[in-house]
């Protein structure tokens, strides 16, 4: 057995692979990258380095709104420190927004064909063991599997599109047609899913935007008050019409973003997602055991874990090369390949 030669070279996509591809008669000169054949509905930019969702115009609107509301303010010079603070906040907001929109939110790659077949086979075996007399022998797609997480029972439902049991906290986004880890929601405003990898950037974006609104509003009020000191109030209002308009816009933004920020702050402290909150996973009125197994116990650790925890790697290998012998197989539905499963 020791002399069975195994040529295992994942690090070299070079000559060896090209000749192999040609040998199989599928020799196209250009290797395809994996994002080009990706089955989901996401958009990719920069040769697969950037992931986003199909509707990018939301991001552009958002960007325009920020620039329109904030830039006029930056021109106002009351004290040299004030525009600097505004500028720093602005850069942080843009940084968070870019991260939220353009990184992979935690997409779970679809199951490979052998894995999907194996899941299917195990489920059929289980069905036969339970002897479902109602539909004897008829094929049933897998539905769910039960797991215990820190003593609480959870159902992992089967995703027909991705052909796997969704990991705990994951959910399928119908807009992007992908399962996303720790799915929070699909945000059309930033035009991406909010999931495990970009939740913190989304949260910081919302919070910084709320802070920015407060800051700009405060400065506008200060401008009016300072002017009112020099002249009478009516004159001051006339002179600072621009500040008033800006203040009203900021107040409007604050009403929407501030509420969102408070809501997400509450969720961060409890280490829950919007999705779980809406479904009431931890609502004691809905479930007998409503404990949250993902919480670290106290709100400080929860905040640190969500906001400063490790940055998880992107699981979809966008920049890898498609194996010409594998990609044709991957497209085959399990239904076609099901004939290969042994019956017993």
């Amino acid at each position, binding site marked *: 057995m020791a002399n069975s030669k195994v040529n295992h070279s994942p690090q070299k996509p070079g000559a060896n692979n090209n000749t192999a591809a040609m040998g199989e008669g599928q020799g196209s000169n250009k290797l395809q990258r994996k994002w080009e054949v990706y089955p989901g509905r996401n958009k990719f930019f920069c040769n697969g380095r950037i992931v986003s969702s199909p509707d990018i115009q939301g991001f552009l609107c958002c960007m325009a709104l920020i620039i329109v509301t904030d830039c006029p303010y930056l021109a106002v010079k009351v004290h040299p420190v004030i525009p600097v603070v505004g500028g720093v906040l602005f850069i942080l907001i843009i940084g968070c927004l870019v991260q939220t929109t353009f990184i992979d939110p935690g997409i779970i790659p679809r199951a490979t064909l052998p*894995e999907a077949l194996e899941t299917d086979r195990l489920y059929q075996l289980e069905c036969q063991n339970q002897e479902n007399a109602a539909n004897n022998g008829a094929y049933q797609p897998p539905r769910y599997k039960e797991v215990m997480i820190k003593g609480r029972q959870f159902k992992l439902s089967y995703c027909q599109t991705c052909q796997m049991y969704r990991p705990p906290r994951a959910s399928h986004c119908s807009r992007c047609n992908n399962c996303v880890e720790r799915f929070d929601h699909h945000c059309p405003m930033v035009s991406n899913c909010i999931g495990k990898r970009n939740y913190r950037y989304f949260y910081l974006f919302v919070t910084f935007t709320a802070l920015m609104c407060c800051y700009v509003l405060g400065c506008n009020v200060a401008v009016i008050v300072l002017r009112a000191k020099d002249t009478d109030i009516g004159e001051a209002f006339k002179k600072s019409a621009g500040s008033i308009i800006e203040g009203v816009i900021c107040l409007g933004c604050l009403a929407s973003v501030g509420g969102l920020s408070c809501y997400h702050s509450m969720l961060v402290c409890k280490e829950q997602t919007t999705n779980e909150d809406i479904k009431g996973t931890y609502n004691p009125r809905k479930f007998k055991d409503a404990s949250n197994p993902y919480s670290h116990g106290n709100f400080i650790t929860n905040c640190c874990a969500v906001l400063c925890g490790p940055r998880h790697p992107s699981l979809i290998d966008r920049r890898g090369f498609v194996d010409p012998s594998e990609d044709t197989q991957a497209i085959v539905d399990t239904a076609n390949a099901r004939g290969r499963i042994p019956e017993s």
Partner: protein
Amino acid sequence: MNKRRLFVNNNDNERLNEPMKNAGQKMDDLSRIPVNQCPKVFVQRDYTNGTQLAFTTKFPQELEGKIDVQTFQKTVTKLNAMYEEAETLSGKTYCESCLACLTAYLSYICISTHYEQMLKKIRAYVNEQNQNVYQPRGLLLIDPVERGLRVLEICILTEQAGGR
């Protein structure tokens, strides 16, 4: 992360040729079994402690007679420990995240994170285990990163799929 291709040269090994002859292939093709035609064993994730990355150490039946339980469990336990080290909350990850935030996330472009370094270590460990333990026994571990960290895939190189 790169394209993966693997061939087994089994001309040296009489036992390996038999299932292939049954499959009725030509002599030229006999020397190679692409890895995607091997039967595969899947070690699932263990969610009992939450969503943190860990694989179950339960020994899969399909591997019986191919590798002993202790060796298999040692590998999985070591992998789990390495993943735990990557995911655990420590001062280092806190500093990394704060630094990234202060630089408006530009630091992620040039600095590789603790997690990425651990993934490299894990890849090295998987390769080392493959070379020393699994390939002599006709098995091959696939780095879980290539399967979305959802399953640990073990290929049985000495058999052809559908033949079991």
